């Protein structure tokens, strides 16, 4: 069985495992969707019982799991009790919003952080390196929540950006670029927060990897042939230092759907985050399970892509060099 085949099997097994755990934990969590109704004296227990059987929640867990798996294979993830709509389309719509946010943030992060990491490594100890170091340390130390709230407070104070939501009201009929500009304005705050937090980590890793490679004898040998510093850095050193960065890249990909949850909730962006949060709080069973499964698929897929990219890019791994990895 070749490498890819083995990875795919492992991925499937992981998904099954996660789904089982999802079911178990959601079931074990105290309370259910109908708790509010139970407290309400106007709703009779029979009504609640009827609602429960209507949504299939009175069946044993195994049966529910079995039915869920069967329908999941048809891309039907069940029914949301809270929203009264099928889970899958709702998830997908929200996932798209999240992707818009996180993909933009990821692109910005990597475009800024990789050159910054390389430059600060090359100019170690100089002004750029020192200021970046302090900035990075701060960003890593301060919780994401605090940064988000701080920027939110600034935005409110100076009214520069719209707060919350993805679009303004009454925009139908206006030209496309106006709508795009509007979304961009709404997006700016969460994207800044995400970029700040993620790029700090990437800068650190890239810098460390590049610093290590700069010690290697081949770098001195390359400079000895009169190749310019910047070419040595980007064309010779960076590819050799790419391994840890690619692993991080995989983590970034993996976290595309799940990493922005906190920021979305705080900034009011209508993505997957708030949806899953609400669903969890209100025990909207199939929404919770569905949301977690979609996130998991992304996570596993992202890691798989990263591993494949690593194998393709690093010739030592690709050709089975004795001291690779």
């Amino acid at each position, binding site marked *: 069985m070749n490498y890819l085949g083995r990875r795919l099997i492992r991925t499937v097994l992981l998904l099954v495992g996660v789904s089982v755990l999802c079911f178990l934990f959601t079931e074990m969590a105290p309370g259910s969707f109908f708790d509010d109704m139970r407290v309400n004296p106007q709703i009779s227990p029979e009504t609640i019982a009827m609602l429960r059987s209507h949504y299939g929640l009175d069946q044993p867990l195994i049966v529910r799991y079995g039915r869920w798996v069967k329908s999941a294979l048809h891309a039907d993830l069940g029914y949301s009790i809270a929203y009264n709509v099928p889970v899958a389309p709702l998830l997908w719509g929200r996932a798209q919003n999240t992707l818009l946010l996180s993909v933009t943030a990821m692109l910005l992060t990597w475009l800024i952080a990789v050159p910054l990491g390389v430059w600060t490594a090359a100019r170690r100890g100089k002004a750029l390196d020192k200021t970046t170091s302090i900035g990075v340390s701060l960003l890593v130390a301060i919780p994401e929540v605090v940064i988000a709230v701080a920027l939110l407070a600034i935005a409110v104070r100076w009214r520069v950006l719209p707060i919350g939501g993805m679009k303004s009201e009454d925009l139908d009929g206006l030209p496309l670029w106006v709508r795009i500009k509007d979304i961009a304005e709404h997006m700016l705050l969460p994207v800044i927060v995400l970029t700040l937090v993620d790029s700090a980590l990437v800068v650190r890793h890239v810098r460390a990897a590049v610093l290590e490679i700069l010690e290697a004898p081949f770098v*001195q*040998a390359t400079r*000895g042939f009169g*190749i310019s*510093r910047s070419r040595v850095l980007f*064309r010779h050193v960076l590819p050799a230092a790419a391994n840890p960065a690619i692993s991080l890249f995989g983590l970034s990909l993996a976290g595309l759907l799940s990493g922005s949850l906190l920021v979305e909730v705080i900034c009011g962006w209508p993505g997957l985050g708030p949806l899953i949060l609400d669903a969890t709080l209100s025990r909207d069973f199939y929404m919770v399970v569905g949301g977690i499964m979609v996130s998991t698929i992304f996570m596993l897929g992202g890691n798989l892509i990263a591993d494949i990219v690593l194998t393709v890019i690093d010739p*030592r791994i690709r050709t089975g060099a004795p001291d690779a990895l």
Partner: protein
Amino acid sequence: MAVSAQKSKLLQIQELSMTYFPATGNPVHALDDVSLEVRAKEVLGILGESGCGKSTLATAVLRLLPANCKHQHGQILFRDHDLLTLSESEINRIRGREIALVAQDPALSLNPVMTVGNQIAEVLQPHVPLQSKQRQERVRALLGEMGFDQPSEIYVAYPHQLSGGQRQRVVIAQAVACQPSLIIADEPTSKLDPPLRADVIALLSRIHKQFGMAILLISHDPTLFIGFADRVATMYAGRIVETGNCKEIFARPLHPYTQALVRLAKSAATDSIKAKSHFPFIEGDAADLTVKGPGCRFEPRCAERMEICTCNVPPDFSPEIERSVSCFKYAE
């Protein structure tokens, strides 16, 4: 003799002193008043044991020393320009194009994630304006000249896929790519098996004849120089202790250190089988470069030491034409 003296001096190192200041520990006086010249088209050997500063000398010429190595005094004149005063872009024009360094360990001095063909092409890129296709042609031709039967296959190979000997030839190809006037080869054979060493020297000899470049060959193995080098300089504890014609130096070494080295080399080869017999060696440990005493650096290990050797550093004496010895035995 007169003819060779008139040969143009390509590289002149004058009273060069360099000291390392490591983060912890004492300063290391790697080069102490080193004076040396390399003439056009000649092969000059530098013979010295590990820790004598010879690698520092090699990297100092191309200004590749780390930041913690400070230039104390002296000059490195290449065609009458002091390399130590050039700007970064000026020295970059010289590196690879006029002077090329064949680094010590080819396993470590090649980029592990780049094909060897591209690594040779990268040397051409800043110095020789060529289209990408032409560059590749040139690299393949170069690989052929290095003795590779299948240049196209080697072009796309990665360093870890090649043997030690092949890697060494790739590194030499890099050095030769722009046909520089001087190649500095720092211990080109020390990491190779003995049967391959002769091959590498034969290759260097061939390109020396073919391209007419000067070669500065640095090694701790005296046998590399015989039959290849024109002149040899012996180095000890950061100083040049003897210089002269290669045949002369090995036939009649004058400095006690050179004499000891030649004796060792001969006993390793010609005494052949004498099972369980002790090896001849030079008494004492290698010089500690962090300590800079007043006298001759070799004095503690010298069989012929004199009073004067402990208090004064011997200057260079010329007991014969084209011979320079830094030893009080030859004081007039």
